[in-house]
């Protein structure tokens, strides 16, 4: 692991990054990928689900943290637990269904049975074959080392020594609260997440979503041609790009005058007094004048809360997406639709259709994204693009806003808020955070060798 990636190549990388450039070889390099799996995905908080997906005792979901199968259950006391979805007897996948409701899980191989707390409660012919010496409780399901929630969002971490989820999210909590606390009953997931496989590298899609409103004017130019988006090429730049701790960040896109044409993102007026009651005046103000919120939690959770539809039929929703890497050139995308539980039923339905039309498997915006993501992968397999000595000047450009834009002290929310979202500040922060983890992992592996 890590062969071909040395401290020297990484120090060149660091230097380039500090000048607003990213060496192209890191995008899909297989050694880098191994370092990412070990050093990033096994160390950071990974989004698994929202509590509304586990409505009652016995509800379960199966999810993945890269290649680790996870079984999430709500036990009889209503608590949510996460286990490695692998029988402790021979390691078989214990539960093969995506979701459902059960009182216990029985492995089809030899029939070992576990309850909703992961306790081994049944071994076929137990005492007769294992004797009384075997302590059943030593063979309970293995819990995922850390499981924590914030406002119903369930995250797990494979690193038992990781900082708490709340500390990790940092000021992102303040922005998440705008969505998750504005309504009395919070948000709910409707339907099930769509899942599909794309030819793409997770870093590039995370960056594309979290940190790149600049692509909107050209990748999604079809919407301009159709009169859905404004023709001003700067239309997605107006607002603030907020760089937060730990590689997280958010773009608050408001329109040229600092106030969207769509008050409260088209959410029904009947809900506005509730928002005012539940949010701080500053959060309420930002919600009332943003057209789009788009951002992400490092490393691989992104979100977008847009206004979508054609004139007269505009709706808002919150879309979460997880980029689950399946290798340096491939990923499985998970896409969730969220809406306020308190929204009128008709609004929820229209908003869901608006989501299908814009993002997700069939979304018209997303369709064109998948094409550019694939092309990034396809260009990154060569001698020139993969050269670690950078002798072909194989670096890509993150110079937008570099040393040009300064944070706007007037922005009322937390974080470093730059006064334009056509700006690579957040992308640079994302890649710097990425590099920090890669360096730490390389050091750890080198110590192991010694």
């Amino acid at each position, binding site marked *: 692991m890590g062969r071909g990636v040395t401290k020297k190549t990484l120090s060149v990388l660091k230097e380039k990054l500090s000048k607003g450039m990213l060496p192209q070889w890191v995008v899909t390099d297989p050694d880098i990928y191994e370092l990412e799996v070990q050093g990033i995905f096994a160390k950071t908080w990974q989004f698994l689900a929202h509590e509304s997906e586990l409505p009652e005792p016995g509800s379960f979901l199966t999810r993945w943290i890269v290649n680790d199968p996870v079984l999430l259950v709500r036990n009889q006391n209503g608590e949510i637990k996460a286990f490695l979805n692998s029988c402790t007897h021979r390691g078989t996948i214990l539960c093969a*269904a995506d979701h459902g409701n059960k009182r216990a899980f029985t492995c089809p191989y030899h029939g070992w049975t576990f309850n909703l707390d992961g306790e081994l409660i049944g071994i076929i012919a137990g005492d007769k074959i294992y004797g009384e010496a075997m302590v059943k409780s030593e063979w309970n399901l293995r819990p995922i080392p850390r499981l924590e929630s914030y406002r119903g969002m369930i995250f797990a971490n494979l690193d038992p020594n990781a900082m708490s989820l709340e500390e990790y999210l940092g000021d992102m909590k303040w922005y998440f609260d705008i969505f998750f606390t504005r309504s009395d009953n919070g948000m709910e997931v409707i339907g*099930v997440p769509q899942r599909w496989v794309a030819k793409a590298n997770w870093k590039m899609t995370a960056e594309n979503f979290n940190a790149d409103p600049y692509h909107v004017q050209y990748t999604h130019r079809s919407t301009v041609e159709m009169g859905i988006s404004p023709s001003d090429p700067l239309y997605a730049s107006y607002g603030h790009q907020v760089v937060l701790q730990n590689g997280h960040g958010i773009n608050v896109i408001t329109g040229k005058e600092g106030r969207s044409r769509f008050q409260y993102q088209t959410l029904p007026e009947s809900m506005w007094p509730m928002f005012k009651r539940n949010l701080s005046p500053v959060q309420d103000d930002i919600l009332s004048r943003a057209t789009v919120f788009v951002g992400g939690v490092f490393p691989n959770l992104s979100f977008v809360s847009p206004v979508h539809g054609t004139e007269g039929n505009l709706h808002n929703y919150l879309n979460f997406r997880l980029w689950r890497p399946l290798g340096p050139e491939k990923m499985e995308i998970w896409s969730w639709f969220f809406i306020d539980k308190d929204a009128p039923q008709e609004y929820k339905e229209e908003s869901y259709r608006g989501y299908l039309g814009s993002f997700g498997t*069939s979304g018209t915006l997303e*369709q064109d994204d998948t094409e550019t993501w694939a092309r990034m992968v396809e260009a990154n397999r060569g001698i020139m693009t993969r050269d670690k000595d950078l002798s072909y000047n194989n670096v890509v450009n993150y110079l937008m806003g570099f040393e040009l834009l300064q944070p706007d002290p007037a922005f009322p929310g937390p974080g470093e808020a730059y006064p334009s979202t056509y700006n690579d500040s957040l992308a640079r922060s994302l890649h710097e955070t990425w590099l920090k983890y890669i360096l730490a992992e390389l050091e750890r592996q080198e110590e192991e060798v010694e």
Partner: protein
Amino acid sequence: MSSDLYREICDFLYHEAYLLDTRQYKEWLELLSDDVEYRMPVRNTVEKKDDPFERQGYHLDESKVSLKTRVNRLYTNAAWVEDPPPRQRHYISNIVVEPGSTADECRVRSYFLFRRSRGSEQHAEELSGVRHDVLVKINGEWKIRERIIYTDHAVIPTMNLAMFL
């Protein structure tokens, strides 16, 4: 069910597939009734006792208006997903035609295998499943009033669902 009718419906579905394969989407829209309901629910892997489509998630839940928007977008100069155009093929088979609630209506079940070849990729993307249609005869011509697409996949193997099925 007369063999003439069966033949007529088969011809209709093959013609539809040809329009889609040759990217004549505006002509394809003409085959849909104005009140068409066009859906593709999200399939899940669930235990035998449960319904794989139970949780009401969709990949597509479209009306004529929203399909028109999708089609019109593909005719712009910036729909990169189809520029350069991928090569696509709809294989339609196992067609079963049953009478509908009136003489001018029938219920049709058909299997599909969709293959798409993009750029220089050696492997074509593939998608399969079954479609449940309601066809109605309007002014002497068959139109699709309802189509529900049940894909075989819990994880969609194509990088997007830009195609119509």
